[in-house]
């Protein structure tokens, strides 16, 4: 099983990579952080004796991706699985953010994901099944004030994945969209979860469990995977409310939590 992972040296990337390595899959890992990739490769080789290839790449740049693809083509690697994990978000309201950062959210979360998906699907192993994972977010299910660009970029992924799933059904490709709530991957993420209080801890998912279930599910069935009973309930209830009402509720809740969060951050 040859697996391609983007954003591999981040928290979720490392967990998915470890899950795949523990199953004996061969890994091709990419991330913009070259040092992180190198450390992860070393760790996976030592822990699991895994077969790992890494290549640092800025997937928002055509040239950078082309160089990586040339390397792949030169060695003739073909893939059975793709995890689109690379993604980014910046805290703060639309106007408080630098214009460049806002645009970067779309160019990484959307454009780069399309670029990689196209490239790796074109390099799938022939005659075999292919598993394709998009890491979207619970945020993709609603319009989210104060996370407007991020939520919309993830919305793109959720809808795109659903449509692509139909296109590729007959081609033996399973498409899974992962929509997690909060993932405790970094110190920053954890302080953010803490600032949201009760709702923060209820919607937080266990990283190791999400990694296991994602790798498990994408090979069995396609569709939407929302980890956590509370998150599934929230997303179900959300279907009965008009989107404008949901946006208003989220704005109210988030503006309070963010104030608190920014306060504790500056302490």
């Amino acid at each position, binding site marked *: 099983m040859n697996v391609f992972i983007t954003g591999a040296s981040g928290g979720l990337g490392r*967990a998915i990579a470890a899950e795949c390595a523990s199953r004996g899959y061969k890994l091709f890992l990419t991330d913009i952080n070259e040092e992180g990739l190198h450390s992860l490769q070393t760790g996976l080789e030592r822990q699991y004796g895994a077969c790992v290839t890494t290549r640092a790449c800025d997937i928002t740049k055509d040239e950078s991706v082309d160089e990586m693809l040339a390397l792949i083509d030169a060695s003739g690697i073909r893939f059975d699985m793709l995890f689109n994990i690379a993604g980014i978000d910046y805290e703060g309201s639309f106007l408080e953010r630098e214009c460049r950062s806002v645009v970067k959210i779309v160019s990484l979360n959307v454009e780069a994901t399309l670029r990689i998906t196209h490239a790796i699907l074109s390099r799938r192993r022939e005659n075999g099944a292919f598993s394709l994972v998009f890491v979207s977010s619970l945020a993709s299910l609603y319009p989210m004030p104060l996370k407007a660009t991020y939520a919309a970029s993830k919305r793109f992924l959720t809808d795109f994945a659903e449509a692509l799933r139909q296109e590729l059904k007959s081609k033996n490709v399973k498409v899974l969209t992962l929509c997690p709530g909060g993932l*405790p991957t970094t110190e920053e993420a954890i302080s953010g979860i803490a600032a949201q209080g009760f709702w923060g801890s209820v919607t937080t998912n266990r990283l190791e469990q999400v990694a296991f279930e994602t790798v498990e599910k994408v090979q069995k069935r396609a569709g939407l995977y929302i980890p956590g009973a509370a998150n599934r309930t929230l997303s179900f209830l959300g279907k009965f409310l008009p989107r404008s009402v949901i946006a208003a509720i989220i704005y109210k809740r988030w503006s309070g939590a963010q104030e608190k969060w920014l306060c504790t951050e500056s302490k």
Partner: protein
Amino acid sequence: MKTVVITGATSGIGLATARKFVGKGYNVIGIGHSETNCDRAKEKILSDYPEAKIIYFVANLMQLSEVKRVADELEKYITANCNGEIYALINNVGGVRSWYQTTAEGYEQQFALNHLASFMLTYRLLPYIEMALGRVIMTCSNSHKGIKMHWEDIMLKDGYNPLTAYKQSKLCNILFAEALNERYSNNGIRAYAVDPGLVNTDIGNKQTGGVVNLIWSLRKKHGVLPEIPAETYVHLCEQKTAPKGLYYYLCRERKFSREVTEENANRLFDLSEKLCGIKYRDLVVEL
């Protein structure tokens, strides 16, 4: 003047221990993970002991790359300022994580910080400890009892629980001390594990959340001051002939878990060498 290296020396047990050693006239080298905390700890100690020989190095020991970097710095410093000798290395750094989180290598953070960091640092500093026929002391915990090593899933990827991860990492500490004694006690180096008891520190409130944070906030109120366990570390270093025990609580030997066997100690030692990409060498000089 004898040199002591203490990790996690900016707060809690590490800080209290650093202060005790300074008071006894030792040269103290502390390691802390933020510059601010290191400066603050140094100031505190200097305000009590203006003549203190105390220096701090900054390193996030959870990451192996950081252990290597700070070890490089320590080597230079110890060669230039401490006659190339370390009399005692106190592997005290430790933490709790509410969730499964990993280091850059993809290693579970409690295992990496509470055990691998000590394993790696001891490896790097061993030549200097050997020069002083010194001692290595781990901050262990009585919670190492009642748990077995999860050999098949050491990082607890298949079922993480903060307390299980903590207990296992503390079992690792005492197994590591046992393994060091098996390898190097004939060379004049001794290793110990100290049970500090329940101590009022912030260990369960750093980088944790929700339940762990809450439980620890309630529990730590029943803990003793960190100055109490600090005595045990000083006691173990002040004895002229190295004490023969392995596990100490309030300056006295204590019974340890039945899981502390030569087999387990060697198994952990081999695994840790593999995970750190190192090989402890045999020491030449036998006593």
